């Protein structure tokens, strides 16, 4: 943008609904998550963190000191399952919001084949992607499966309320499944957090709710074309084309494009 004649540019009312020309410095911002989705995500993240800290304190002796964060071993033991109950509710809401956008497709297979290039930040020859790439979808489905496993096995080993319903042998399997699922889930979250650090501009999506147009163009071009820009020709035939990246219309503060 060497010379920008602002009088030739559209105002926000005139460009697609989910795109905002915030500063007229050659950059637009694209809505990615509404306020409800962001709060839902961070409540889930907070609960996952509490569960990780309290769970790890009971998992390995060298981490037992973490139980001090919760007031000691007994309190940690008492709180951990309740964190889990809140997490399953919070995560279920995330799941419902995002499940449609995480259905795998052919682009994901092509994208995965290029993973070696992607980790070197080389994007040549990558397919254009919708709102989520295969890695993000694996986080979504991985956490969905593992949190389900942890919820069921967690109920089995929640001795205070459910101790009498299962045999000791079943509880042994539940304990092993619970801790193994937790390890994998924490592993996924480490990768998830790192991806947010590595891919610059990503955390903005979950904090401010929007990403820059360039970020969307680089990482989720099909989403930018189809959804954010509302291209009719691109959206034709797509199910739920009216507003597919926002399955649950939230309190978006921007006026509709009319």
């Amino acid at each position: 943008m060497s010379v920008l004649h602002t009088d030739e540019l559209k105002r926000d009312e005139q460009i697609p609904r989910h795109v905002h020309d915030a500063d007229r410095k050659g950059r637009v911002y694209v809505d990615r998550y509404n306020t409800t989705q962001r709060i839902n995500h961070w409540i889930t993240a907070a609960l996952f963190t509490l569960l990780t800290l309290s769970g790890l304190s009971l998992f390995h002796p060298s981490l037992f000191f973490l139980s001090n964060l919760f007031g000691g071993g007994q309190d940690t033991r008492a709180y951990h399952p309740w964190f889990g109950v809140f997490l399953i509710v919070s995560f279920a809401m995330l799941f419902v919001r995002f499940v449609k956008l995480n259905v795998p497709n052919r682009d994901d297979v092509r994208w995965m084949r290029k993973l070696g290039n992607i980790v070197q930040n080389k994007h040549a020859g990558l397919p254009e992607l919708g709102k989520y790439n295969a890695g993000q979808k694996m986080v979504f489905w991985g956490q969905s499966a593992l949190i389900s496993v942890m919820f069921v096995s967690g109920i089995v080993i929640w001795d205070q309320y459910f101790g009498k319903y299962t045999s000791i042998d079943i509880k042994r399997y539940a304990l092993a499944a619970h801790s193994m699922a937790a390890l994998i889930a924490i592993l996924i979250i480490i990768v998830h957090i790192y991806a947010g650090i590595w891919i610059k501009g990503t955390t903005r999506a979950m904090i401010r709710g929007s990403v820059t147009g360039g970020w969307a163009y680089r990482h989720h071009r099909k989403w930018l074309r189809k959804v954010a820009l509302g291209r009719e020709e691109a959206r034709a035939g797509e199910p739920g084309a009216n507003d597919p990246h926002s399955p649950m219309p939230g309190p978006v503060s921007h006026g509709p494009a009319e």
Partner: protein
Amino acid sequence: MADYQSLDIIRRSASTEQPPRVRGGQEVAKLIDVSRCIGCKACQAACMEWNDLRQPVQTCQGNYTNPEDLSPSVWTLMRFTEYENPDGNLEWLIRKDGCMHCSDPGCLKACPSPGAIVQYENGIVDFISENCIGCTYCVKGCPFNIPRINPVDRKVYKCTLCVDRVAVGQAPACAKACPTACIMFGTKADMIVQAESRIADLNSRGFDKAGLYNPPGVGGTHVMYVLHHADNPRLYANLPQNPRISPIVALWKGGFKVVGLAGLALAAVGSFFHYVAAGPDETDSNDETVAFDMAHFEDDRNASEGRGNDVRPSH
């Protein structure tokens, strides 16, 4: 009073520190000769008395086992089994159930709370209640189904082998009370010798399968039985044939812990090194320009009414 015998502690739950080994004392054992048991329950009464435990009165379940099960306040229990042997004769098998004080205790292995379960050098496995967090992992770790959680205080209880008596040179209360010397107490070596003479006696009386129950799967126990049917301990109210720490528990408390934490550390360190090696994935100004132009120029060609308005619309 967790540490009043700390010099005698050779193993401590959820702890990796080297325990003190300056003393090197003798292992003790309780030997229960079930062939001499008359089912009087003096041992149960003595246990209640010494440990000051009172189980609320229950209803009869149609047999002599009373109370019906071990509980937070029932640390030892005589289990009565009516067994019809191959000759068609009734045998009344009575086994005094309770903590076996394993050399390799599954409860201690499973316990996540440092010092909630300890093993003394004399072999006694003891729960230190002030460190117990009520998770009941010990219940899953025990191959004998002994520990019981108290729903009132969320702490787990079991036989202490009267560690407080043994520490001052006394026999456990149950052994002291037993009128037929069915329950014997001494060094483990002495008790094995004692058992051998009892087994020889039983053999001479036609119990050719008599033997000592000191299961090697848990490294031996510090409560041992002389059984007339040592070939089939299940006869005695389901005493395990070959008890050992469940492989699931061993995996969970063994491999998982090491591989799991190593995996998490590797992921974190690996991520950092990836950042150092490959660097961040950044959006360049060309991407921004293209997206900007897509938003402003490619879509709506006849948006002319806004031209000339350089005031940024608020939204």
